[in-house]
Each structure stands twice: as C-alpha cells, then as structure tokens.
C-alpha cells in the first residue's frame, strides 16, 4: 500500500532507533507524550516501543474523543435513540462504550434502532431513505472529524432534509493539551503532536506550548516510522537546546491547516461555553455545538435530552490514565474488574484507548529500568 508500507519499514526503524539512542544523555530519562489516541494505537499495534531505549518513556495523552465522553452523554444518546420512530447512527467506535444502563450494543439488543455508519454522509442516506423516521447522527471526534460533520450539515440544509439531526459531541484538542500542561502531576520533555487534527488546524496552534511552556512539539504522522522519526526530531531539538514546533508529517499536514475545513466548521458550529470531559472535569471553550441558525438540525434542541450528569464509578481511574499520570496497568481495576469484555471505563473500550491498546496488544513485561526522577528546574 503506497504511502503506508514505506513508512513501516523495519530496516529504517533500526537506523532511526540507533540515532535516537545516541542522542540520549547518560543518566537522563525522557518522557514524551503522544497526544492522539491514534498514535497510542499505532505504537502498540506495531510494537514500536521495542525500538526505544529504556531511557525514553512514552506517556499516553487524552486525544481519544471516545474516551472523554462522560457516561451521562452516552445515556443521553441512548435516550434519543429510544424515542419512537427514531434511528440513531453512530461510528463503530461508540458501540461498546458503557453508559450507566449499558452501551449502544446493549440498547440495540433491547430493540433500539442503532446503526453503524462509516461516514456521516451515510446517515444522510438513511435519512433520505426513511422519510417517516427521525435520523440522529452521534457526532464524535476532535477537529479531524468535525469538518465532516459540518459538511454533512451544510448538505442536509442544502437538500432541505427535515428528518436529520446531529447530537454533537465534537471536542477540541488545545484545551486538552493545556489541561495536561497545567497539571502539576506530570513532567514531560516534549509532545508528539496529533497529525490528522493538524491537517485541519495546522501547526500554529501548538506554538504556545513551545513559547509559553518550553516544551518542543513535533507533529507526527500515523505510521510507525513517522512516530519514530518524530521522537528522533524531539531528541535532536533537546540535544540542540531548541524548543520549537516542527512538522514531521509534511506530506499531509499544511502548516496553515485547511481553510475550507475551518470555514465549514465556523459556518455551522460554535464553541460551547464549557463541556464536561470524562476524567478531566469541566473545561471552558473545549467543545462544539450547532449554531442557532442550524437549530433545525440540533438533536439537543429537537429532542428533550435529559442531560443527567453521571458520576464516574469511584473505582474508575480513566481520568488519570487520560492525563498520563497513570499507566494503564497502574489502574487498580485494570485487567481484573475492568477488561475489554467488561469495561468499567472508556479507556478500555475505545479502539484507541490506552488501556485497550495495552490490554489487547501490549500486555507483556518489557523490562524497564527503575525509573529515576531527575531534578529539573
């Protein structure tokens, strides 16, 4: 597969790994956070950590849009789906996420019409084919996916569709990264930036991380060589005393992002004043909702959404895993009470959740040296 296989080449990986190891200062530990859940997935799926020296640790970040959806919102979605003559459409990622009374899959088993789609445009198709039903699309995702929902809404309006609406759970990445940076629990040396989000927002939004917090950022692609090269670029910056935003994924990410995509989002949506993120609490200006002009397509306006806030189970430590404070296996219920078959939290059930990735792919002991806390100013 072109533009894929070349970036999975094992020989080049060995060479990069050697270079990375050379750049490690003796006695120093390095911690880089990969923000995006897609990167976490790639790292585990290809066994990338095998190539890293013991001195480098990868910390998994909160960039998993499924993981950060609070249980109450899942309950709301199921409530919507359960209304008479209603079809809920959703990406596969959401199907097993537990609400307080079960997941979409459980609701489907109880008779609710919930259908999986690959694209929001497929929801439109279902709406056209079922004029006597109300079709709701469960919109999730960071800025990578938001433009697609926006374009779909623009099209729905152009066609004058009257039975289509969106339950909007799109979130934005910068507030999540800020929450990490402002957290006292974590000392990171740099960030592996989210490649596909950046095709939309560009690389400028990360400049505050380098300028304001003194951490280098490398925007990375999703093949294992992309991530390895990004780690190499971070190590080079550190060794040269630089602190910048760099773009490793130049074949796809334009520095200025995609104006058409940003325009589409802006036409249809606006920032919510605040939104609850699972594990991270309420964050201001971190999520999208439909604009007033599009209320005819807003499921939260058309339906009576209960909006009940559901507390995370006390045993659930998803929040700390999402912030990178805990590794998946350090969560007390990891792998025992909380498994992919019986998930307590979203990190275990999202296809790119850190716990799911570790449980399904990484559940083995890669001898790590004792972690040494190096005093840093």
């Amino acid at each position, binding site marked *: *597969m072109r533009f*894929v296989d070349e970036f*999975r*080449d*094992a020989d080049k990986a*060995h060479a990069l790994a050697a270079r990375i190891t050379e750049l490690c200062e003796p006695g120093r530990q390095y911690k880089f956070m990969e923000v995006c859940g897609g990167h976490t*997935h790639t790292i585990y*799926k*290809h*066994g*990338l*950590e*095998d190539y890293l020296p013991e001195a480098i640790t990868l910390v998994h970040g909160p960039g998993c*849009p*499924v993981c950060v959806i609070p249980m109450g919102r899942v309950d709301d979605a199921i409530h919507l789906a359960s209304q008479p003559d209603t079809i809920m459409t959703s*990406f*596969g*990622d959401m199907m097993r996420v537990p609400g*307080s009374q079960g997941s979409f*899959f*459980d609701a*489907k*088993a109880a008779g609710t019409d919930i*259908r999986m*789609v*690959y694209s929001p445009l*497929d929801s439109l198709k279902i709406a056209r084919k079922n004029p006597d039903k109300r079709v709701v699309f469960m919109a999730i*995702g960071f800025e990578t*996916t938001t433009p697609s929902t926006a374009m779909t809404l623009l099209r729905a309006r152009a066609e004058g569709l009257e039975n289509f609406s969106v339950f909007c759970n799109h979130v934005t990445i910068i507030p999540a990264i800020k929450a990490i940076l402002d957290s006292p629990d974590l000392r990171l040396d740099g960030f592996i930036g989210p490649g596909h989000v950046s095709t939309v927002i560009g690389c400028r939004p990360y400049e505050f991380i380098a300028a304001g917090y003194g951490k280098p950022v490398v925007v990375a692609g999703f093949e294992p*060589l992309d991530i390895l090269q990004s780690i190499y670029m971070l190590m080079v910056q550190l060794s040269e005393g630089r602190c910048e935003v760099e773009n490793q994924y130049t074949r796809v990410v334009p520095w200025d992002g995609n104006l058409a995509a940003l325009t589409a989002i802006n036409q249809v949506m606006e920032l919510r004043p605040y939104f609850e993120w699972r594990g991270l609490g309420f964050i201001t200006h971190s999520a999208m909702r439909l604009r007033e002009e599009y209320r005819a397509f807003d499921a939260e306006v058309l339906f009576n959404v209960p909006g*009940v*806030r*559901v*507390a995370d*189970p006390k*045993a*659930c430590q998803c929040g700390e895993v999402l912030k990178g404070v805990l590794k998946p*296996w*350090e969560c007390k*219920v*990891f*792998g*025992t*009470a909380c*498994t*992919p*078959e*019986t998930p*307590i939290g979203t990190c275990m059930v999202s*296809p*790119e959740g850190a716990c799911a990735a570790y449980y*399904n*792919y990484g*559940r*083995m*002991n890669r*001898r790590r*040296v*004792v*972690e040494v806390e190096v005093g840093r100013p």
Partner: protein
Amino acid sequence: MSERGASWVDEALREHEEHTAAEHTAAVDQAAEHGAAEQGAAEHGTGGRPGSPSDREQQVLDRIDRARRRRPRIREERITMSHGAGGKATHTLIEAVFLDAFRNPLLEPLEDAAQLQVGGARLALTTDSYVVSPLFFPGGNIGDLAVNGTVNDLAVSGATPLYLSAGFVLEEGFPVADLTTIVASMTAAAAAAGVQVVTGDTKVVERGKADGCYINTAGVGVVEHDLAMGAATARPGDVVIVSGPVGDHGVTIMLARGELDIEADLTSDTAAMNGMIAGLLGAVPGVRAMRDATRGGVATILNEVAVAAGVGVVVKEDQIPVRAQVRGAAELLGIDPMYVASEGRMVAIVDGEQADRAMAALRAHPLGEQAAVIGHITADSPGIVLLKTAFGGTRIVDLLVGDPLPRIC
C-alpha cells in the same frame, strides 16, 4: 442536575474482590505449606529493586492472568451481536451456558467436531447454522457455505466427510426461485466434496423472521487413521501453517451488505477442503491439529490453541498471506484481517520436523497453492499469542470481544 451512578460497576468490583480474597487465601495457604515467608511476589522480583516498576507491572500481569482463568460468567441480560462473533463473548456464552449445562467429556474439547466411538468405528459429528446476510454474494450463496462449512468442520477433525443433514427455516414470502438456486448450489457443492445430503427438515416462519432463509446442518464422517489430534496436542517446536490468503469471505460479505458503499473485486473463498486435507494427512503423520478459519479468523484459532495446549504461539505478520484488496478494505475500515472469517482456509499445527512435507502436500492442491508457514509453537508465554509485526516490534494477539467493528479513530 441530578446524578446517578452505575450499579453494575459496584457488582463487578465486589465480585472481583471476593475472587481476589479467595485467591489470596489459597495462595497464603499454599505458601504456608511450603514454608516460605510470603509477603507477595513483589519483594522477590526478577532482578529489579523490590517494588520496581518492572516487578509491579509483572504483578499486574500475573493478576490479570489469574483473572482470565476464572470461570466465565454471563453478565449481560440479553444476547447481543457480540455473542455470535466467535470472540470472547461467544466463548463466555458457550462455557457459561452450554458447556455448563451439557457438560460431558465428549463435548469438552470444544473442537470443530465431536469424536465418537460407535461400535468399532470412530466417527466425527458436527453441526452448524448458516444465517449469512446477504444470501447471495460474490463467490457463492448460503447453500455453498452450508455444505462446504460442514464438510470442512469434519475434514479438519481428521474425518472423511460422508453424510449431511440440511434443515431449512424459510421466511414466509421467500421466492421459491431463490430456494431452488440455493439448493442447486448445495447439490453441486456436495458432489464436488463427495458427500450426500441424506436427511433434512423444512419449517416456515412468519414474514419478518429468518432473513429469508436460515440453514442448519449436521455432518457425519468416519475417522480412518490412528492420529490423536486436537488443539491440546500442540507442543513447542511445532509450526503454524495457514492454507492460503485470509479474510476474503468476511470482507466480501461486509462489502456485499452495501452499507459501506465500498466496491472491490473480491469473492468469497468458500470451498470444500477435504481433498486438500486428505492429501495433507496422507503425507504427514505429524499433523497435531487443524481448524477451519471461520468467524473469529486466524487470531481466534491461535488463541484457542495457546490456551488448550498451554503453549505460546509466535507468528510473523509479514508471513500471513492477505490479498491486497482485503488489506485495503481492512485498512480503510480500521479492522484487522487476522480476525476476519474465511470459508475455505484452515490453520494447521504440524510437527516442525515435517513442515516441509506439509507445505509440499498443501501446495500440491489448488486450494493450498498459497499456503504459508506463519509461525511456531513455543514453551514461553503459555496461553499467549505473540505477533512479530512487519515493523519489527512485538505485540500480543488477543481474542476480540465481538466482531471487529469499523472505526474512525
């Protein structure tokens, strides 16, 4: 704003605590017996400082291992689609409900067919139900699957397939012409496989049920060799062979459902493998086990072998044959071909010393032209399947809970 919590979580935790307490008591008793001063494994780790991250991680891994070996229990109140996918949910359902109720030594191996001793003869008996949708797809129809699938279950159990039953559940309103086409396919498939359909049944259910047509089969074959086969007989040094490219059928069906709007030149690989398997068994006495790579895919079989035999299975990603188009569709949807069903492919565990002979025997048959050695059995990491990725790293291959679901993330 009111709040409410999740009661099932409390129950899961309580249950887990009870189990852990019971296991701890058992461990303490055992330790006391052996006269060791035991505070837990942490203090006596594998070379790190006491309580080092490496030890703590290992402790967690051990704990998880124990949790995985607990007696399975169904938590759901209703059957969901996951229960039919061939993964963890299916296994839990089978063990917690069916095995528990019907328990007997003939059922327990849970192989593709049961091995029976009747009079002086060794017979194999299998049963299957076919509920595929759509009924007609590129490469065949439900009838082909029904005959080939049953024949294959018998063949991988080491039996010569002889007789099939065919029970039909038909939906009111189903076109007779479609039924005729399906039955004609079954006749052709049976002839090609050298078996006969000797008994059957027909039921009709009201419009809205049975998706047009469901078929249930049973198959009987005779075991004419002395080999003792079965997943539990796999041992270190054995090789893992797959008879050809995997995932064709599953992806074909996914695309044929039409909801994904994806077109590809793919056809189902449904085929009767008994001829190929007879050739293999005739040339190679060291075949330990064979499994039909249907729902759940190759990954599921590897896990079943690892657990049944208490061995580790190591496979290499770049050795697993996958057609370019299957790979393209899988990447597009974010699913892994290792979990996708085939209907004319099998996985064989063979004595390592006879690997070359096995490969030659398979490749001599049209269905086995692209057979490949994909891995081997090891004594390390019992119960675990390890994959050496094309990138050169290592990861685990576990059972999925249900079907691989297309993802966007």
